[in-house]
């Protein structure tokens, strides 16, 4: 049901885009206004969310660590998995952001029939890590590749990505490796949610919706490149027009383009209010981005209430005479 709900939403979006593509008068809306709005919502919403997160206090050191903490000099510290320096944190964050270190440590638990009843066993589970890695890297390379539509002249780096991505030179236009990888990976991530009962149980429409969106975006992109051709030069003129704030709307771009750009716009607009914000959130994770130095530095809660304290020294100052009279011992005469 949750799957169906997301699926129908995406289908409706595709139908809306197809209608927009078939009516020439709406091309201005679908090709120019909606992409601009989506871009504003994406950048603005992203900044809003990150600032909102930044305002929430993180008073204590709460890193989750998987290595030996800095301790006595003869005990070897794990400087990256349990960092006590900014450099360690940067390396740790880089491993998390680029290589998904914490997903690599993913385990699966299973109840097996043992001699004395069921036994709990743990095993390594790398498929999720591998799928995510392929998915995210492909997505990044695809986005960088798309810069060829937005930049004129096309920088060497973008061209280099393009050449490496199409290096197999299968067919014409050449097949991109990332297109293949992203489709396989996103399908895997989708079936994982459907097939594994525990994952299925905790999956929400908000988990399926981005998957379907990305599937459709990759799908329309591939269709547009290999089957229902669009006029690339016109597409680039439109894109450069958007980037120079002098929007032009070439005729005869091809309907598939409008479906593609509409879905991309919706995904970008939806981005800041969705789980996709893990793109910014990963950098804001206090369990990852903090040094584990609570034994070296005293961290004081910034909103601690000022408590009026009455120390013994003050107490004695106040009552010294009376204490002496009563014969009580005092520390200072």
């Amino acid at each position, binding site marked *: 049901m949750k799957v169906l709900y997301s699926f129908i939403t995406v289908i409706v979006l595709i139908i809306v885009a197809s209608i927009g593509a078939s009516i020439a008068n709406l091309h201005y809306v679908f090709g120019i206004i909606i992409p601009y709005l989506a871009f504003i919502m994406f950048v603005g919403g992203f900044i809003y969310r990150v600032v909102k997160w930044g305002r929430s206090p993180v008073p204590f050191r709460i890193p989750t660590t998987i290595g030996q903490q800095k301790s006595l000099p003869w005990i070897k510290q794990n400087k990256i998995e349990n960092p006590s320096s900014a450099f360690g944190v940067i390396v740790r964050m880089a491993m998390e952001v680029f290589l998904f270190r914490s997903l690599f440590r993913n385990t699966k638990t299973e109840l097996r029939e043992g001699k004395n009843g069921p036994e709990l066993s743990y095993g390594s589970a790398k498929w999720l890590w591998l799928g995510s890695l392929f998915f995210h890297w492909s997505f990044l390379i695809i986005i960088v590749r798309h810069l060829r539509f937005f930049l004129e002249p096309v920088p060497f780096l973008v061209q280099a990505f393009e050449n490496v991505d199409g290096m197999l030179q299968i067919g014409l236009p050449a097949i991109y490796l990332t297109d293949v990888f992203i489709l396989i990976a996103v399908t895997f991530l989708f079936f994982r949610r459907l097939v594994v009962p525990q994952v299925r149980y905790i999956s929400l429409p908000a988990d399926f919706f981005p998957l379907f969106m990305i599937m459709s975006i990759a799908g329309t992109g591939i269709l547009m490149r290999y089957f229902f051709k669009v006029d690339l*030069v016109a597409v*680039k003129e439109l894109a450069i027009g958007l980037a120079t704030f002098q929007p032009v709307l070439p005729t005869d771009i091809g309907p598939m383009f409008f479906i593609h750009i509409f879905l991309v716009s919706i995904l970008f607009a939806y981005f800041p209010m969705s789980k996709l914000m893990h793109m910014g959130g990963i950098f804001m994770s206090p369990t990852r981005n903090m040094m584990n130095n609570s034994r070296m530095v005293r961290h004081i809660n910034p909103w601690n209430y000022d408590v009026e304290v009455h120390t013994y020294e003050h107490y004695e100052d106040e009552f010294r005479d009376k204490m002496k009279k009563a014969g009580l011992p005092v520390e200072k005469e």
Partner: protein
Amino acid sequence: MYKGGKIIASLIIFAALFTIPFFYNMGKVNAGPDVALETPAIQQLSDKQCVESPEFMRANHMKLLNQWREEAVRNGQTVYTNSQGTEFQISLQDTCLKCHATGSASNAVVLSNPATTTTGVSNPAINESPEFCASCHDYSAVEPKCWSCHFEPKEAAK
């Protein structure tokens, strides 16, 4: 904000990354590619049509070229019959580039290339500029693989 400096710096980097196209293209004119459709060879044609319709060629020229390569190199076929029944010789240099070469005779390059020296046939792929291909291909950053077998004319190098 806690750690405000770092967060704001990161957000500026984020915004900068995503607004690269706006800054990169700032002040530039949105001029599409300048496609040379009025070469002397084309002007002489009575029926100004390519091997197939312009719409088809625009979308599918790479598939057609691929098909031609297979026909000529692997199947030994040298005649292509288009959708209207007209026959064309399958040759990049003698059919395509006959019209779609924009260089004039003045910039002809004399090269000791087997293609010219042994046959004696003038070779537009060598002598003429393929600006026609390059104009769109450079614009959309698509590298044609034609010149990995066919001799690349000097003018094709950017």
